[in-house]
């Protein structure tokens, strides 16, 4: 592949990336969340089409318009998101789209016989007639991998295949990878687990912000070298005012257990005037913590706000206590995009503007207008439909909604995802200003630069554990990444 580029609205996902793969070679792709690894693999697999650049398979330039065209070239992709169908059994999933036939009918018997062999290969001890709905996530992943092997394959792409496998299952997968290598299959391997890359990869290619970030040969592969490859960029000048003087603890979380990681307690506290950044890889359990604190998901543990224990059974409880969440998904959770800017700001505060249950429009409009002005939201009027605003301005509307309700604690999940640089800076300034007013802020972010620029302390999560909290002065991208991939502090 040469000079491959891909744009999405507002983002350049890939910018002139070169990458190659020889038969019988395992190339690991390394990069942070959003570095462009999955996009690149989806172009190779025919899911997306590149805007520029060329894809050359066996000296022949190709453009795949659909996944089936990639399949014709014996390129198989096992995506990160599982694509097995729950309503079918294992053998039906493995032969999906190319069912064996006998006299025009599906030849289940033959399919099941063949499936037994594939399952043995991946080490899944289940009868082929088991419905996929009855399988665990790890077992489903094995079915997906077995499906890839069941076809003639010359190039295989594995996107985080081990993310839900146990150590034993992973080792089994590495054996299969070694076998395939010997058969001359070329493999792209994406993983955040650095130790396993050291085991399987012949070569490592780094991606950063959609560009090539260097490569490592087999001999050069070390933990440190890989971490450096993932993050090694200039750190943006810090916008935080430096560590604030010790002040009262506003929010104290003890042994919080979320529904996703019910056996892993998380404890931390945030002081008045402090921004605690929460870093980690996708799926580390950070959003689950924010949802639990805001009462969206059930959770166990104690939450104390200014020393008083707070029972959060629903968002209403959190809101009444002055603890607000700006969720990750702006369009489907943060805002009701079909409503106007003004309605979105007033929505949680109507009880202040009602008499006998009826809306008092005038004070409500004044309140919404104040919110818009305070955050400098660029909108023609408060009657504009929220969907028509840019991402940055939508995020400001969500912030304005809560700022108008006198927050004590603000929880912000990915504050600037998909937002242009100008609005980003404004939002950072706003967060610092709020902290200066004495708020306690919890900011979840996958953007390393952002975490370092805005936070006073940085907590790092790995697979549900809070693997460490770093003070601003000790925090480097390497130190955070090390904790995020499960390394020791």
């Amino acid at each position, binding site marked *: 592949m040469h000079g491959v580029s891909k744009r999405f609205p507002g983002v350049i996902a890939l910018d002139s990336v070169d990458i190659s793969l020889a038969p019988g070679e395992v190339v690991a792709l390394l990069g942070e969340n959003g570095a462009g690894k999955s996009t690149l693999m989806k172009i190779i697999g025919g899911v997306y089409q590149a805007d520029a650049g060329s894809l050359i398979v066996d000296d022949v330039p190709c453009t795949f318009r659909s996944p089936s065209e990639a399949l014709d070239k014996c390129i198989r992709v096992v995506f990160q998101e599982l694509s097995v169908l729950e309503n079918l059994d294992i053998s039906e999933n493995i032969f999906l789209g190319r069912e064996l036939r006998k006299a025009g009918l599906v030849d289940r018997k033959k399919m099941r016989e063949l499936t037994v062999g594939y399952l043995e290969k991946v080490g899944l001890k289940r009868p082929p007639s088991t419905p996929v709905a009855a399988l665990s996530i790890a077992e489903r992943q094995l079915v997906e991998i077995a499906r890839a092997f069941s076809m003639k394959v010359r190039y295989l792409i594995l996107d985080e295949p081990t993310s839900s496998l146990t150590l034993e299952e992973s080792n089994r997968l590495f054996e299969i990878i070694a076998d395939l290598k010997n058969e001359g299959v070329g493999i792209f391997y994406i993983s955040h687990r650095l130790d396993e890359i050291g085991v399987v990869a012949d070569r490592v290619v780094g991606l950063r912000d959609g560009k090539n970030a260097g490569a490592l040969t087999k001999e050069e592969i070390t933990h440190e070298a890989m971490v450096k490859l993932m993050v090694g960029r200039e750190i943006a000048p810090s916008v935080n005012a430096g560590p604030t003087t010790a002040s009262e603890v506003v929010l104290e979380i003890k042994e919080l257990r979320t529904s996703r990681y019910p056996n892993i307690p998380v404890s931390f506290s945030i002081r008045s005037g402090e921004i605690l950044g929460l870093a980690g890889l996708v799926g580390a359990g950070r959003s689950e913590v924010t949802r639990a604190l805001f009462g969206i998901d059930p959770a166990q543990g104690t939450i104390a706000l200014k020393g008083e224990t707070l029972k959060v059974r629903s*968002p209403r409880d959190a*809101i009444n206590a002055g603890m607000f969440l700006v969720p990750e998904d702006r369009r489907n959770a943060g805002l*009701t995009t*079909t409503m106007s800017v003004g309605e979105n700001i007033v*929505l*949680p505060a109507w009880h202040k503007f009602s008499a006998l*249950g009826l*809306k008092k429009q005038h004070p409500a409009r004044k309140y919404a207008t104040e919110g818009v002005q305070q955050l400098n939201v660029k909108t023609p009027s408060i009657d504009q439909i929220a969907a028509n605003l840019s991402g940055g301005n939508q995020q400001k509307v969500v912030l304005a909604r809560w700022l108008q309700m006198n927050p004590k604690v603000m929880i912000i999940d990915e504050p600037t995802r998909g937002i242009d640089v100008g609005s980003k800076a404004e939002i950072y300034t706003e967060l610092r200003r709020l902290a200066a007013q004495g708020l306690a802020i919890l900011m979840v972010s996958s953007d390393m630069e952002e975490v370092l620029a805005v936070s006073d302390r940085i907590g790092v999560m790995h697979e549900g554990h809070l693997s460490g909290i770093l003070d601003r002065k000790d925090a480097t991208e390497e130190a955070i990444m090390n904790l995020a991939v499960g390394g020791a502090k």
Partner: protein
Amino acid sequence: MKFGKELSIFLILMAVCMFTGYKNPNFFSQANILNTTKMIGIYGIFSIGMGFVIITGGIDLSVGSVFALLGVGLSMLLTEHQMNPWLAVLIAVAAGGVLGLLHGILVTKAKLQSFIVTLCGLMIYRSLARTITNDNTRNFSDAPQAKALIAFVNGDWMGLPTPMWLLILCAIIAFIVLHRSVFGIRLLATGQNEESARFAGIPTQRITTITYVVCGLLAGVSAVLLAFYTSSISPNGHGIGYELYAVAACVLGGFSLRGGDGSIIGVVLATALLQVLRNMINMLQLSQQLEFTLIGGVILAGVLIDGAIRNRKKRIPG
């Protein structure tokens, strides 16, 4: 134009009235006007209730069977137990509310789809009505204490029948609740995007449940009106398929079955249009069997035109 849709239904309604009146002057006779507005009143009240449920993205298919069950229940209270008629009516309406509450709890707490919950209601309530009556048609002839109330319900005041006055009252209250109250804006937010509403601290489950209770209560009111109007309740056929008139009126009146959108004026006008169309078939001595072809065709045309207008707005921005 904010009330464009309501205005167009109103104009079509007027056109159908003029046309029918022109073909058969009896359309404008006092008897026919009283009868048609009575039907509009009875159907409009439970259509408003249906509208509230549809705004949440749900549906209530059990309405027709609720009519049968509450109808025979009301008859039994009045004839076999000689109950005070006002008390009996109150019990019937409350029973409708309780059934709605049950639907609401099953939808929000047990997370069942409203279609399934109320489809089961449709079957169960009909079957219960038939079981407790042994399939015998019930009436109110042995309830002398209820004579005055029945006469009142079937009577008229200032040129309009009682059910029409009740509809006007219900419509005014519903209009204020939906378009002017805090509950209304929370209901619309819940219907448009329940997840977002939840993140704004709105108790979406409670709001959804309340809409089913409202639907049940209004179905209870309509059940009483319908029972007194027909004064003969055959458990097998009474009210059968009536829920579909309500769904049709909502769709025609500008509600989205996906939820989050609705107009009280729209549903009332659409109910009126459907009832006038039914009346037109009588007046013009068309074949009775044509009724649903006509109603189905009108709804389809309405939805098609609406979709065409919406797509055009999308193509030409601003």
